[in-house]
């Protein structure tokens, strides 16, 4: 694996940031310098793909630094548009890394983990990651296998394998993009931000009615709030929301509209899933299951989610 390729696969890496610093590239350069014309186009493409949910995993092998420039420009633009768009970009970048890193050798993954995300990773066949490092990412990932209680833990380390390391890193990519500061953009990038904002709003306008949260339990309220903020939700969280809302009388169209906020929203897949849940009349999970999925924010005293509704 060439060093330049790793820059394209991991444009968020510390190495990439160091090169940017060495080159002395400023936000003004990214906005105005004709040398960065291709990077600007690629940044826009990243944002468009993120918004429409298109998966484009082709990388610029001829000039991998373009991936770095466009990654930086895209996240600054997204941050200036707002958290919903930033969240979409974050999920897109996370999935992109996840896909492109499939063939990365373990050493390279470990390098990214330690250098970029300050994680401590030991071992070879069997890997051990420090507990805080594991938790910061794992608690955003759904599924019982990501709960610490279900892991092998020894002397402050959690045992993982290579695939799990990649999944954790992808989550760190998402978190990293979400932390992008909002800064004043120079004019050409500002215009791109406005375009992106318009496009995003146009897609969101298709929503019909605002859902009412009424007397929903705190777990559901939290999920709806997170969704409204444009955060990504796990599969389990999506399933919970859909089953619950259908049970309390929302129609499929209303549920679909709510899900439009998802950073990786795909109308075809989502509407199929919702119809399937409605047809099968699935019940929302019970409180124990919610806890085991890490989706119970507080003890609310209800014995089951639909109590009193």
């Amino acid at each position, binding site marked *: 694996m060439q060093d330049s390729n790793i820059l394209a696969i991991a444009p968020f890496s510390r190495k990439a940031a160091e090169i940017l610093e060495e080159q002395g590239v400023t936000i003004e350069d990214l906005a105005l310098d004709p040398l960065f014309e291709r990077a600007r186009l690629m940044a826009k493409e990243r944002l468009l793909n993120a918004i429409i949910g298109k998966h484009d995993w082709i990388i610029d092998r001829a000039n991998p630094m373009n991936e770095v420039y466009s990654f930086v420009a895209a996240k600054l633009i997204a941050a200036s548009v707002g958290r919903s768009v930033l969240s979409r970009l974050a999920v897109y970048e996370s999935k992109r890394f996840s896909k492109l890193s499939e063939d990365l050798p373990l050493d390279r993954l470990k390098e990214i983990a330690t250098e970029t995300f300050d994680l401590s990773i030991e071992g070879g066949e069997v890997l051990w990651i420090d*507990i805080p490092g594991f938790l910061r990412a794992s608690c955003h990932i759904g599924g019982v296998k990501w709960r*610490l209680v279900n892991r092998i833990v020894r002397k402050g380390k959690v045992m993982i394998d290579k695939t799990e390391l990649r999944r954790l890193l992808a989550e760190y990519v998402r978190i990293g993009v979400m932390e992008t500061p909002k800064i004043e953009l120079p004019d050409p990038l500002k215009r791109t931000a406005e375009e992106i904002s318009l496009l995003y709003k146009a897609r969101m306008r298709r929503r019909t009615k605002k859902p009412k949260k009424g007397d929903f339990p705190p777990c559901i309220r939290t999920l709806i709030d997170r969704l409204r903020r444009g955060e990504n939700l796990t599969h389990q969280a999506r399933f919970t929301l859909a089953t619950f809302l259908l049970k309390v009388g929302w129609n499929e169209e209303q549920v679909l509209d709510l899900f439009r906020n998802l950073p990786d929203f795909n109308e075809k897949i989502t509407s199929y899933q919702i119809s399937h849940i409605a047809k099968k009349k699935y019940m929302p999970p019970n409180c*124990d299951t919610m806890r085991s999925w890490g989706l119970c924010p507080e003890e609310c005293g209800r014995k089951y989610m639909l109590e009193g509704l």
Partner: protein
Amino acid sequence: MTLIEGLFGLYYQHMAKTIYVSDVPKREFMFMTFDRTVRRHISFRNLEDLRRYLITDPPLHAYYSVSLYTNPTAPMDEKGMIRAELLFDIDSTDFNDEVCEKDSLWRCKECGNSGKGVRPRRCPKCGSDRLEVNHWLNERCIELAKVEVRRLVDILSSELDVDIRKIAISYTGNRGFHVRVTEGPLTTLGRNERREICFFIMGRDFDPFSLIQITGDGMAVLPSPVGGVLSRTIKFMLTNLDNMKLPKSLKPKLKAFLGEGKPIRLNSRERKLVIDKFKEAASKTGVRIDWMVTMDTGRLTRIPNSLHGKTGFRALSLTFDECLLFNPFTDAIGLPPEPEVPVRITLEVPKFHLKEESFGPFKPGEEIRLPGYAGIFLVLRDRAQLLGS
């Protein structure tokens, strides 16, 4: 100033030097005064100022924030959290133990029905769940809580690799203990990460299937080397296998599976049984902590060595060894025997021991004179009223 307030003040005058909180300027303090007013968002420039405050304005309860803030006096969302101690609350009230609760009194707020012992879920007479409890504390409550402290400290140091010198233990002044991780990487974690740590420590929501695999040879534990909740559970099951309610034929198979890691073949009924036993064992080997407390980084917790307003006992900070030998009924008495106080008993009081002297039992309506710490203990527990001397 009331008599009790005066005695609390006297305690702080003599014992202020034992009050210690690290990073005082970065913490929020909260006090409950004797007229039950809560003062929040208070900060002090240094430890001396805090001690002086306790002497001049002795509170009924004194708390500090587990978090360090850049601006501790600001409203909650503007404080700017830097990091937060990882606080574990072990409270025997959560154990529902019959011996510990044998002198606790409950009363239904709907129909007035009352009783003694573990609080029922609902009033047996009218079915209401609005029950109020006046808890009592005895040696059993403290012993049960100590067992949990020992297990918690063991898990923290051996599995989570917390430096034992960074673990602070203190008696709450009532029915339990606080265990704090004061420094290190775990103190930088947020709410969700803290919940994960708690469930790991509690063995809660353990799903054995995430670590047990079905192979061609049957069900097998994967993979070695083992550590964490699964290994705790296996150890527990091996020790307690003989007492477990399981079909006799299953026990030898299970022994080989647990002890030697041999894959076993089970039918679906047996498998369900074994998995249920795993889950049960996981929670039994876990520590009984209040996870909502640990998760809350905005939490305020009792200042070590301050007085508890429901007992008059000192919330003593203890080393691990001291904790094992600790007896609050002799070691944590914060108030003096003098002056003797006259009290009228309002709720039944069982026989109890303080400073190796025994008192009671007393019936409601009885009027007695008791050493200061004993009389005030009953008043603070709402089982007696002070009579004008």
